[in-house]
């Protein structure tokens, strides 16, 4: 039995068409995935269902076989539709309990909040679906995974039958993702219907029953997940054949050390040790992966290597030359490049154009400027060249970084860093939030860089990414190097994922 049906739904913003003639049927009690690349119109479609904006006239929305017209999110909630946004909407200084009841507080004598009955109701919900959160903790003290549970509790408290989850695992750690899958399965078992937006293929295979694919705002098809391969899903989503697993030649081990990190100690912003006696050697023509769970010192390590943070002790050398605690510019000039973790806040000046972002570090150099005056023609020539070489779209060098898609933003950074011809490239979460096509591209460029004899330091929270790219894998836990697996150990180990998981959780090799 269908709980929700969309028929020929279209939505335009001015001349921009967000989605067009979408047909979607969600059956009661199923986990239905909505798959599409970034910018395909998934989130807009979900916001329509949640009543955040009305679709264009023409199509119709049926809920429980009845035609509905949503004017606001309040109506959607009243009809049993709940949504967890990608960016949580919680009041951080409030407790979990307060957040859950916010807006529909049960009242005592008409003006006092009846916390007791609220607490009882929430506790029975938690018992029913078998996941628990401390109701008296403040949101700001909770991990991201727990905050997500609060969001789910919030919509269950509002008696939602249909739960819409927008990219729920984008911000979770591997362990949190596992717990999240269990929650989804419990919800399904108890008869809730779940509509999940994602572009992660293995996630769909893991939890979804059926899957609807949207490409560039157009409905492609709905298929049963267990009959489709990941490869098939990916091709349908992107509209062409894609390589899911990076293809790389084996490299013969070299022992030429390019970057040497020795006994490095770094403090975090709270002046507590974040990196402890860290030793690592990056080799020429190697991709060295650093596996680890978010928040185990990766950020501080990168900041210390790139000069954004002073290290307490220890040394860093590029090709025997000490670069410890030099300024970011000096380190950059010593050919250490970086793709930062947060491309929008750190990697790019969002209000600058593509061409300006491409010369952010090198504006002082010839040919981009002379006597301190910018030579605009040279900037344009340079930008046009890189835009073509790295297939950045749109191709206009004057477009602001803000108006690019995530994948193209990352290409701008990649272009800038690779063009600078670095000896070492630190790639910190280089594909976070990107879709399959862009991931494929970034990975192939990293491998190209490796093949040209550079050292690549890949730091990622995604174990799959580390596994598919790395020639050598280091593991970090609580600021310490807990393991270093050589090429041989990687290829000989049958239970590599489990082994790495063990080290990531603090096991010592």
């Amino acid at each position: 039995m269908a709980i929700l049906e969309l028929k020929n739904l279209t939505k335009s913003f001015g001349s921009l068409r967000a989605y067009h003639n979408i047909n979607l049927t969600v059956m009661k009690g199923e986990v239905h995935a909505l798959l599409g690349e970034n910018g395909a119109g998934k989130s807009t479609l979900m916001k329509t269902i949640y009543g955040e904006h009305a679709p264009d006239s023409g199509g119709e929305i049926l809920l429980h076989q009845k035609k509905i017209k949503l004017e606001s999110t309040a109506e959607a909630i009243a009809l049993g539709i709940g949504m967890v946004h990608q960016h949580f909407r919680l009041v951080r200084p409030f407790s979990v309990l307060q957040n859950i009841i916010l807006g529909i507080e049960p009242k005592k004598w008409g003006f006092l909040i009846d916390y007791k009955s609220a607490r009882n109701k929430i506790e029975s919900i938690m018992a029913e679906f078998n996941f628990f959160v401390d109701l008296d903790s403040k949101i700001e003290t909770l991990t991201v995974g727990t905050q997500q549970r609060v969001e789910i509790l919030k919509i269950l408290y509002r008696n939602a039958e249909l739960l819409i989850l927008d990219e729920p695992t984008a911000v979770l750690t591997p362990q949190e993702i596992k717990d999240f899958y269990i929650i989804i399965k419990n919800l399904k078992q108890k008869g809730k219907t779940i509509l999940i937006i994602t572009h992660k293929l293995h996630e769909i295979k893991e939890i979804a029953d059926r899957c609807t694919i949207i490409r560039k705002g157009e409905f492609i098809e709905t298929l049963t997940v267990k009959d489709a391969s990941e490869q098939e899903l990916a091709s349908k989503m992107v509209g062409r054949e894609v390589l899911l697993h990076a293809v790389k030649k084996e490299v013969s081990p070299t022992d030429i050390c390019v970057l040497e990190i020795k006994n490095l100690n770094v403090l975090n912003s709270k002046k507590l040790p974040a990196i402890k006696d860290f030793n690592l050697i990056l080799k020429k023509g190697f991709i060295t992966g650093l596996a680890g769970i978010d928040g185990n010192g990766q950020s501080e390590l990168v900041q210390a290597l790139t000069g954004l943070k002073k290290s307490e002790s220890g040394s860093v050398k590029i090709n025997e030359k000490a670069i410890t605690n030099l300024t970011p510019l000096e380190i950059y000039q010593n050919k250490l490049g970086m793709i930062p973790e947060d491309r929008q806040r750190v990697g790019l000046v969002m209000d600058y154009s593509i061409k300006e972002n491409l010369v952010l570090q090198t504006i002082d150099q010839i040919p981009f400027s002379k006597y301190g005056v910018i030579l605009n023609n040279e900037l344009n020539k340079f930008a046009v060249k890189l835009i073509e070489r790295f297939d950045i779209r749109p191709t206009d060098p004057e477009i602001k970084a803000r108006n690019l898609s995530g994948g193209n933003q990352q290409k701008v950074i990649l272009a800038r860093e690779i063009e600078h011809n670095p000896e070492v490239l630190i790639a910190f979460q280089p594909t976070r939030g990107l879709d399959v096509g862009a991931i494929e591209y970034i990975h192939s460029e990293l491998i190209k860089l490796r093949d040209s004899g550079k050292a690549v330091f890949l730091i990622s929270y995604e174990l799959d990414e580390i596994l598919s790219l790395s020639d050598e894998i280091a593991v970090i836990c609580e600021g310490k190097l807990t393991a270093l697996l050589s090429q041989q150990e990687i290829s000989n180990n049958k239970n590599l994922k489990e082994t790495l998981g063990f080290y990531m959780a603090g096991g010592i090799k």
Partner: protein
Amino acid sequence: MKNFLVSLLSIFLGLLLGGLVLKLSGINPLDAYTVMIEGAFSQPNYISYIIIRSTPLILTGLSVAFAFKTGLFNIGTEGQFIVGALTATFLGFYFNFNPWLQIPVVMILSCFASSLYGGLAGYLKARFGVHEVLSTIMLNWLALYLSNFFVFIEGFRRPDTETTEFINQSASITLLENWKVSESGMAWLENHTFWKSFLRPPFNAGIFIALIMVFLIWFILEKTTFGFKLKATGFSQLASRYAGINTNLKMTQAMMISGALSGLAGALHVMGVSKNVAVLAAHEGYGFDGIAVALIGSNHPVGVLLSGFFLGTLKYSGQKLQSALEAPSEVISIMIGVIIFFIAIPSIFNWPLKILSRIKKESKQ
């Protein structure tokens, strides 16, 4: 382009609401605006006065806009103006070189003093994280009382007054100051009524210097690597730091240049108009008006030039309301307030702007 439209619409609404206030106080708004327009443009000397009035506003506006491009809100223009004015008076009084040396020396040293004063706020921000809004507010008062203290120093104070000695003639930038009152000059002016009227006010070279500064600041911001880094710092400190830009240094430098511009406004005011400084009971507002000028001019050098003239005109012609119609001249302040209010919430105009663009589209088809 959108900023320009927002400014124009805000000005229009400001004039409309100003008219309403006039109406409420029993004065016909049309009469009032006629008085203002006539009081601004009907005689050459009015225009001359407006230019004199606008010069410091353009410079302090430029000062605020420049700091803003680097992500800093310089509220200290008032204090920097005072420091510039005081330094110019002091040096103009103690030095007495040939004008070709005297004028640049006084001007440049005054800029230098105020750039240090502005730079102090930038340094405090860069080194200790003191928010520039707080530090510059404090520094405004510090400048005011410091100035009052210096005015009363014996030898500098003009005996039996609450003002300082006048600057030497060699430091004056008032144009044709002596010629105007010489016999030949008076004879010539007698036959040229336009110039006679135009030169009656202390018309001075300040406006030309201000115009040069508008160009210079535009050039720095748009064409130089220095401006590139300043703006990058203003947009995103994190990204700039990562790209190897010394953001702390850039913030200090931006505040120094901003301070120099405000100080220049003060120096030119002394050298061209007032010739000395007096004890201040309160802030004169040249610096604070610079914030309004920068906002109306959407922080663009050319926008600042236009809005500086606009505000100068409004302030000058507004004075005439009182004498001609016995209307409260505060109406002008209300108008400026309304204009800034609307500029601060540009989304108010999304609706009329949308209609405007639709009309444009339809007329194209």
